[in-house]
């Protein structure tokens, strides 16, 4: 499954890019699985995805908990807790 990833704030900075297209293996079922898998994709990724407590996600622009399945997702965004307004 190919999916478009978007990174924001310090996730973007640590990974070193604003997004990427990935094709995770079949055992990646949830957003949390995706985060674990991404952490193994390089030093920047390892730093960005080390601490799940500080990560939030959106699947196709809807905010979701990390245990949400990603089957069928076109766009997944990973980012820190929001600090807006």
């Amino acid at each position, binding site marked *: 499954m190919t999916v478009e990833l978007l990174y924001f704030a310090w996730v973007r900075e640590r990974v070193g890019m604003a997004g990427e297209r990935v094709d995770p293996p079949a055992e990646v079922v949830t957003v949390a699985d995706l985060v674990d898998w991404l952490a193994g994709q390089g030093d920047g990724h390892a730093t960005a995805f080390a601490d799940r407590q500080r990560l939030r996600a959106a699947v196709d622009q809807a905010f979701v908990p990390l245990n949400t399945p990603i089957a069928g997702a076109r766009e997944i965004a990973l980012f*820190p807790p929001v600090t807006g307004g």
Partner: protein
Amino acid sequence: MIRVVVQEAPIDLAVELAAVEAADAGAVATFTGLVRGDDGVTELALEHYPGATERALEALCEQALARWALARATIVHRVGPMVPGDRVVFVAATARHRAAALEACAFLIDRLKTGAPFWKRERRGSDARWVEARESDDLAAARWG
């Protein structure tokens, strides 16, 4: 009626207020958030999630319209680099009755703090850091159930 704008340009209050007052409703409640410079911040940069931000803010306005008898709900949010004194966000709710306008305005700004994809980076001289989420914001949003 809902108006949501996310923009890099400065927020022009005269324009926003005129748009809000055009609604024939006697009560106009607004909240404006400014960049504070009192703790040494020289620049505030706001990053957001284009598309998702607008959806989130429109959803907030729809929730407010469903909950209170409003004429109009408006959110104008600035993104990009700003300096102390700049307006970051303008929220307005208009209604026939003041309680609805005041409560909806407070609801919109409380929810906006936790429910919309914005991230702040503060610069103090040469030091820049991402602002950490505050638990007090979660609590303020939670009070609306």
